[in-house]
């Protein structure tokens, strides 16, 4: 600016200033102004560089998603962690595969492209493909997850605007084995059911959204509580049972009563998670936690435990089962009627409806409800598996309901729920919510709630062992493992009435009874009589022997060694009290 003033006389002839002067000024270069003009240019450059810098920052903060990248980033399937069983065997893993996409905008001859593509990939629908290529979209899938050979062939076609994207395909090497636990992931590798869905709910999708998971090796494998060997054996035995008893369905599980880990869970019919087209059919549900059933006599264990734990009754209390129990127009009788006075162990061994109904009635409706609530029978049980079902409770819970629920009718629960309760009855009295993830006993104990006294638990172990020695559970009493158990046969409710021919049979086995470790549950839905069962369809004739087969097969795999002599004084308290059966 100083130059502006320093050289005035050179540039502008001051004297003549008319219109002509002004016009002349228009055509005169004022070099004296150049210093100021350079400053203007510098200012311009500052602004220009500022804009570019700002744009750079913008690009770094929120990248402009263009074309292909935008289309694929939302479509490309994300990486998932491997799922392994408790011994590290792979249950689910990611395999790299390739998908073919097209950018319709960039395809020059669409008809030719369709012709060539359908020649290489004959299962494509030519008409539909032509339609989709005709759109103005920037990105369409042609075929997901093709083989390397197909990829090479399409590549060789050399169609401009057709490309490949690497993707992750979820593979379940064991097929059906653990289908209901694993669930499955869809073609975009998003968990749809089972543990796969659970993994997503644990923030995996958020990680993917932020672009953190590029390969499954970036992620720690998810360790399940499942033991693949046990799972296989159990599925095999249940499949045989399904065929043998021409049943509608079978299901079973193995639970570690001290940690709450589900060691195996099978529900047949199942599906192949690699190709889960039929997974959503109605009869493929996971009967262990999605089905709700009236558990029948298995529930008697809960009633007996309630009676013993209340303090009002003890192991030597007796109940009159000489006559049917009448309540209004209803009469409750026993399936194996004894028509005599029974002690508590006898009520359990003979599975007396009258005895258990009297126990519940003796304690009252409210105490019964409170006890069942404590054992988690009245609310939906939530585990890692997203699939669950709420129990079906009677609308008005009166004395009659308490009486029937005492022997397992009138309250429908998920089998997983009843199993968790039975586990609490035998493991010393701790209610532990079952888990499908591996954990230690110490971890389980931190969340465990004491629901019954240890003495009651010993009483329950005693009566269940007694039942295997002398009662309906003898077909599951595998030598060397000191097994105890309880059968359950529930008449199914068909059209609002109890069916006399359609049963749901269950069997709950626990071993070793002096210090329980594993609980086995088998369920057979609508078993048919066979010559071997002499026309019977009750649990002792089907669910119990199946459980026996399973225990015989898997017990050597599990961590309890067999003992060839019965343990000495397994139930010291019962012996001291002189309970029925100890003498």
């Amino acid at each position, binding site marked *: 600016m100083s130059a502006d003033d320093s050289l005035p006389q050179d540039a502008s002839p001051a004297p003549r200033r008319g219109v002509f002067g002004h016009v002349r000024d228009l055509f005169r270069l004022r070099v004296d102004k150049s210093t100021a003009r350079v400053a203007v240019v510098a200012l311009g450059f500052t602004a220009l560089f500022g804009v*570019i810098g700002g744009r*750079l920052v913008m690009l770094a903060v929120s990248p402009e998603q*263009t074309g292909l990248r935008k289309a694929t980033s939302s479509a490309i399937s994300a990486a998932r962690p491997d799922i392994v069983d408790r011994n590290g065997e792979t249950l689910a893993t990611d395999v790299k595969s390739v998908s073919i996409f097209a950018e319709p905008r960039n395809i020059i001859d669409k008809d030719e492209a369709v012709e060539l593509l359908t020649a290489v990939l004959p299962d494509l629908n030519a008409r539909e493909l032509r339609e989709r290529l005709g759109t103005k979209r920037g990105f369409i899938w042609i075929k997901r997850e093709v083989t390397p050979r197909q990829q090479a062939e399409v590549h060789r076609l050399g169609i401009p605007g057709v490309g490949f994207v690497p993707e992750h395909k979820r593979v379940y090497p064991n097929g059906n084995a653990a289908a209901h636990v694993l669930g499955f992931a869809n073609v975009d590798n998003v968990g749809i059911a089972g543990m796969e869905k659970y993994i997503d709910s644990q923030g995996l999708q958020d990680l993917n959204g932020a672009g953190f998971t590029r390969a499954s090796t970036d992620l720690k494998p998810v360790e399940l509580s499942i033991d693949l060997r046990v799972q296989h054996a159990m599925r095999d035995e249940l499949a045989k049972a399904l065929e043998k008893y021409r049943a509608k369905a079978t299901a079973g599980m193995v639970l570690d009563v001290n940690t709450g880990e589900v060691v195996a869970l099978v529900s047949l019919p199942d599906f192949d998670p690699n190709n889960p087209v039929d997974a959503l059919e109605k009869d493929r549900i996971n009967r262990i936690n999605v089905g709700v059933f009236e558990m029948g006599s298995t529930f008697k264990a809960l009633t007996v435990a309630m009676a013993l734990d209340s303090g009002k009754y003890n192991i030597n209390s007796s109940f009159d089962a000489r006559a049917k129990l009448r309540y209004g127009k209803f009469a409750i009788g026993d399936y194996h009627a004894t028509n005599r006075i029974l002690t508590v162990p006898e009520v359990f061994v003979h599975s007396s409806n009258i005895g258990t109904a009297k126990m519940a009635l003796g304690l009252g409706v409210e105490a019964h409800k409170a006890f069942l609530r404590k054992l988690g029978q009245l609310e939906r049980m939530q585990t890692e598996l997203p699939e669950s079902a709420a129990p079906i409770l009677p609308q008005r819970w009166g004395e009659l309901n308490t009486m029937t629920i005492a022997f397992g009718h009138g309250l429908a629960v998920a089998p997983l729920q009843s199993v968790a309760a039975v586990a609490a009855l035998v493991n010393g009295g701790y209610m532990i919510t079952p888990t499908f993830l591996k954990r230690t006993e110490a971890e389980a104990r931190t969340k465990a709630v004491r629901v019954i006294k240890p003495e009651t638990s010993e009483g329950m172990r005693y009566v269940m062992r007694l039942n295997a020695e002398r009662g309906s559970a003898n077909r599951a009493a595998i030598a060397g493992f000191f097994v105890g158990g309880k059968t359950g046969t529930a008449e199914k409710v068909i059209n609002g009435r109890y069916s006399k021919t359609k049963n749901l049979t269950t069997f709950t086995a626990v071993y070793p009874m002096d210090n329980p470790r594993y609980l086995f549950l088998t369920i057979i839905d609508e078993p048919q009589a066979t010559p071997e069962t002499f026309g019977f369809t009750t649990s002792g004739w089907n669910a119990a022997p199946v459980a026996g087969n399973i225990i015989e097969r898997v017990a050597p795999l599990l961590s309890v060694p067999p003992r060839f002599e019965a343990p000495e004084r397994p139930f010291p308290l019962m012996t001291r009290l002189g309970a029925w059966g100890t003498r």
Partner: protein
Amino acid sequence: MVSRAERSIVGDWWWTIDRFLLASLLALMVAGLVLLMAGGPPVAERLGLSTFHFVHRQVMFLLPGIGIMLAVSFLSPRLVRRVALFIYLISLALIMLALHFGPEIKGAHRWINIGGVGIQPSEFVKPAFVILAAWAFSEGSRRSDMPGAGLALLLLPATIVPLVMQPDFGQTMLITITWAGLFFIAGLHWFWVVGLGGAGLIGIGAAYQFMPHVRGRIQRFMDKDSGDTFQVDTAMESFAHGGWFGTGPGEGTVKRILPDAHTDFIFSATAEEFGVIVCLLVLFIYALIVLRGLSLARRNEDTFCRLATAGLLLMFGLQASINMAVNTHLMPAKGMTLPFISYGGSSLLSLALAMGFLIALTRRRPRAELMDRYPAAPAAATAPQA
């Protein structure tokens, strides 16, 4: 070391040049080599050349380039003018030769083969043109017997017509804008600045309305979903992939499909591998050079030096800005290299020449030397055009 105790040519040079400018330019050249190691290999592999082919070639041009820059920076303003005139005439002649005898590459006759080396003469015409135009403007204002502005008005068509014939619209545009900038700095009346600017805007509007080719270009820029936007899309993908810190040297993947990753789109390749932070750093070096140079120009008391310096920086800064703007999708695609960073022998040597001129013209001179020219001016006037 260069001593101040006794005077020598090198000593005088060392203590009078703007060492900050020199250091920034050298830093840019070294950065260019490093960044070319990112952008070069994918293109080299695509062309079946050895991985670091472009880096090696760039070094081979960089060494003589630095030599030229330093040698030219020793020149006095008068010698600068003479060298510029000489180069201008030779380059124009070569451009003409290239038009008639040069091979056609990508639809244009830009190259001419001299002694086995391909040369793009239009690159060398740029700095020479700026010096001559600056001289014409400054001389025209200083001496009434010199039709400076008229000469400058004639220089523009004389330079750009051969370029348009090549055709090379990028260079034409750059030269025209630089010329207009020089005209503005030389004191063009605001009436014309506003008037011509307005006329330009109206012209662009008319072109958009009535010329389908221009309309297509602009629409393609505005709307990504129409037509071929592969270059820009890929460039944007590079930025998205690189983020703040980049993927790391050699880890880039988008660069493999990025067209011209070693020349016009090296900035995007840089973004992918070294991240936006390094891009900002490069931008910062350009800004330093341009703004430092302009502030030196402002302080320079010699009109010619002021105009020439500003013109050279305008050209340099605009070329860098346009390239970066295209890379960041602020502008429609335009063939423009990133000074000292993009691969290209002719471009590098021409830039070295330009920066040599710049350093020479921004040297501090004793006022006496300046004033000497004024009494001698009538004598100088007899020496035509220099």
